[in-house]
């Protein structure tokens, strides 16, 4: 059974930031929702409430960066790039301010529907010069995201998981690296964020069915080590399947496709994720099933690539995690 860690960001941020006067904690009226309420209460000198005014917050953070501070902005990811995109560009990205953009509720991890789900943020951030992109996929990565982000000489976009988060890894994020989770030589599966746990579930079933999966988990999306990926692609016989909590345009599916095309790799590629669609509001398991982001979707994707069925049913997939929906820290809480 997977260990579940409760609110890993809350503790990790406080441990990392407290007592470092150059780090400021910015919030836009989502302080407890981003698990920094304890930090606010215990370290008020480093906390700055900027209200529901994200345009000002982005430029304000740029000004703090100009003064030599390293602001960590906390809000839901969508609110940091959709409305204040102009400010993100002009006040943060262009001048390479050391602003750490902690975007909560990536993709379908919220039942808040279109207005709350950042489904195209990676696509947007990948096209912004000077931007670094990190994504967390488990509690250990959440615990190490602050240190990883703060090691970057420039702005950093982070997809952060909150609430009850599974622990899948035992080593912290090493910026620029990728995690090799299994070393099969038939199919390469590339995942990030919450989709990695789904892929881990499917892997065992394929092993039983005689298909050896090589599984990579990406926590660093930009910059990206193309050669490392190409080496892995070169190590498998059949092709690549990507699975992401994001639209397939501009995310890691595109990243893999571009890498293959640039290098002239002629292998098959199946990209799974949100297929040119918005999502609606619902629970995470429901949305992942409905939009094809879960372990079963990966099974079908691999079958599509192989052109054969493996007779893997839902029952063959490793036991799905069941969140305590009555918990105070449930993912659904806004």
């Amino acid at each position, binding site marked *: 059974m997977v260990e579940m860690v409760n609110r890993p960001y809350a503790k990790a941020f406080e441990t990392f930031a407290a007592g470092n006067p150059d780090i400021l904690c910015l919030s836009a009226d989502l302080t407890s929702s981003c698990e920094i309420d304890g930090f606010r209460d215990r370290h008020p000198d480093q906390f700055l409430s900027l209200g529901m005014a994200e345009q000002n917050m982005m430029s304000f953070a740029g000004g703090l960066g100009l003064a030599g501070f390293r602001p960590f902005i906390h809000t839901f990811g969508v609110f940091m790039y959709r409305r204040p995109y102009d400010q993100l560009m002009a006040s943060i990205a262009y001048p*390479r301010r050391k602003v750490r953009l902690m975007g909560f509720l990536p993709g379908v991890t919220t039942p808040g529907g279109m207005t709350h789900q950042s489904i195209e943020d990676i696509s947007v951030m990948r096209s912004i010069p000077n931007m670094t992109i990190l994504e967390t996929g488990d509690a250990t990565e959440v615990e190490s995201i602050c240190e990883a982000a703060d090691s970057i000489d420039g702005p950093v976009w982070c997809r952060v998981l909150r609430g009850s988060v599974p622990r899948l890894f035992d080593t912290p994020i090493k910026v620029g690296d990728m995690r090799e989770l299994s070393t099969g030589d038939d199919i390469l599966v590339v995942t990030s964020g919450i989709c990695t746990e789904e892929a881990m579930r499917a892997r065992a079933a394929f092993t039983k069915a005689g298909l050896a999966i090589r599984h990579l988990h990406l926590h660093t999306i930009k910059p990206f080590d193309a050669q490392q990926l190409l080496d892995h692609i070169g190590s498998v016989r059949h092709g690549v399947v990507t699975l992401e909590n994001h639209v397939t345009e501009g995310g890691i599916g595109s990243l893999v496709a571009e890498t293959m095309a640039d290098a002239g790799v002629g292998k098959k590629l199946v990209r799974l994720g949100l297929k040119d669609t918005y999502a609606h509001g619902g629970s995470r398991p429901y949305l992942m099933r409905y939009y094809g982001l879960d372990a079963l979707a990966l099974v079908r994707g691999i079958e599509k690539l192989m052109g054969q069925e493996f007779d893997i049913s839902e029952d063959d997939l490793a036991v799905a995690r069941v969140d305590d929906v009555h918990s105070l820290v449930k993912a659904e809480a806004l």
Partner: protein
Amino acid sequence: MRNERQTDDVALGIRRRVFEHAIRNNGGYLSQACSAAEQLAWLYNEELKLGAPTLPMIPKPFEGVPSQDNPDYHTGAGYNGPATPHHDRLFIAPAHYALVAYATLIEVGRMAPEGLEMFNQDGSSVEMIGAEHSPGMEVHNGTLGIGLSTASGLAYGRRLRGETGRTWVFMSDGEVQEGQTWEAVQACAHHGIDTVLAIMDVNDQQCDGAMSSVMDVGDIRTKFLNFGASCVEIDGHDLSAMRDAVQEPHAGKPLIILARTNPFHSMSILEERFPRLHYVRFKSEDERARFNTSIAADLGVDPVDYGH
């Protein structure tokens, strides 16, 4: 660093330089010189506490945008002196006033006149819409409405560091149409940021024409007061009024000086082009010649010999 010239003489010099440049180049940001010359002259010649320039008098060419691969990148802020704790900082929030701002740098001895010859030339750092790397600029402000927020963040950070220098913003009244301006004022009021000071060129003009015809903004002084700023309204061509306005107490609040100005001030013939004053490009050689003669007379100089 203080200049020895009278501020009204600096303002006249700014207008003369912008006039000459506009005639030679068949157009330019003339009206901004009419409205804003006193404000920029007053800031640079009297009010701002700035150190000596740290960048060459003749601007260097464009040396690339900020990137990991451009380690020697720097902004144009060095024309305002070093970013030392006790010195003031200035943002030109409407970067479209760049031509007027560059003329000001020349008039106060911070940039060589050759700098203006580089204006809007390919490969030059003296860009038409002031960029971060343009003389006297420290951030990009061509997207209107972000300047006050950036200044507020910088001022908050400087306060945390115990710096005594102020953070000034030269603003334009069109920026009050942007919601971000009001977000910035409320943030300053909430956090008691009183080291932000702004002087706003209230010329009632914007790109499409008179603000009242594009999007009326009503009584902006009352709005600023209600959002928690201190706000003084003055005649923007009256230097003594500026000197008085900056004495307004504003503990715990930003100070906004609304400088009401005339967009044709000292260049009366510009009124012919009302209400499209944002960028004046001459429509004919005849118009160019008439403007040349008329404005030269207004400014007490000979008409420009532009080789027609």
